[in-house]
């Protein structure tokens, strides 16, 4: 197995000194590289299969409706508002579901953004 070769270090004074002379600069460069990598990393890790995307959006949508209807039902159990809390919160849950889907889509789109050096198409609306 690979052993750390520490035993060589003392007797190669000049060579080791040369090897680590620009160590500070190399570390600084690597740190800068991390920031630059972050942008490309985002697109790589943000990539999901189509099924993954589908499940993500579907569950975001359904969950909001379930929470809205459930919350409304609980309110109706304890307050004399039956059935209006369920109805109103179900509709609000529907809106929240759409909001969730829009947010998730924006997030997924941001992960696979169009490169900034893509030539812009002429927009007819601008005339």
């Amino acid at each position, binding site marked *: 197995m690979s052993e750390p070769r520490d035993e060589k270090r003392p007797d190669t004074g000049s060579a080791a000194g040369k090897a680590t002379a620009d160590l500070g600069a190399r570390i600084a460069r690597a740190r800068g590289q991390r920031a630059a990598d972050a942008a490309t990393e985002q697109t790589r890790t943000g990539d*999901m299969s189509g099924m993954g995307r589908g499940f993500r959006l579907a569950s975001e949508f359904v969950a909001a409706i*379930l929470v809205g209807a459930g919350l409304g039902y609980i309110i109706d159990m304890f307050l004399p508002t039956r059935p209006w809390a369920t109805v109103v919160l179900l509709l609000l849950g529907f809106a*929240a579901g759409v909001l969730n889907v829009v947010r998730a889509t924006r997030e997924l789109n941001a992960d696979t953004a169009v490169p900034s050096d893509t030539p812009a198409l002429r927009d007819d609306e601008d005339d």
Partner: protein
Amino acid sequence: MAEKPIEPIHQFRITDYFDIGNFGGDGTPGSGIHLAFTNSALFMILTVGLVLAFLVLGSNRRAIVPGRLQLMTEMTYEFVANMVRNTAGHDGMKFLPLVGSLFMFVLIANLFGMFPYFFTVTSHLIVTVMMALIVFLTVVIYGFYKNGPRFLKLFVPSGIPWYIIWLVVPIEILSFLSRPVSHSLRLWGNVLAGHIVLKVFGGMVVALLGAGAWGLVAVLPFGMAVAMTGLEVLVAALQAFVFAVLTCVYLHDAMHPGH
């Protein structure tokens, strides 16, 4: 001839290995809380044990030139750290232990489920709900601790006119409350559906093979089962990743409320 039918749900059954005892209740059978060491508990312990062994064995040599195991450990750390840094931001790095633990637990639990006769911990809603609630409560508690009442700005998007705010705020609150639900439902649903589909196709192969000349057709569901196995390994890793990324997204909101 007396073969028992293949139940696709049977694989999710919880069985007790040994009893720990009854707590509370009035002595009648079925009352109180019955605690037992189940197959689910066994596989949770195995999952945690494997993660621990991987990380401890991988990091105990701390060689300057890493060996294979150390390299794998370091790559795992780098992967999770980059995910947290990119999604939750630099100040989200304090949540790296939480996100890393959740990611490794879900990943190993999902991959354990791919072995025949193994129990899949994440195919039970209670497990995924508890993990989602840990994240949800962390977001709420840390959000209020860090931002105080300003955390409520999460529900009030900026630039909304006053006459529509009364409609937007309930929608935002519902959207926020739906997060733990979708967070847990997605992982559970993916794992459960995948395992049922695998079992159904496997059952078709067995049933067709037992039906004489129809055995030739068994090639079709068998090919499907092979393909589904590959897909399920992908889903296992992908869902662990999605779970961890969404944890980071939610934690980001806790630190920076207001869109």
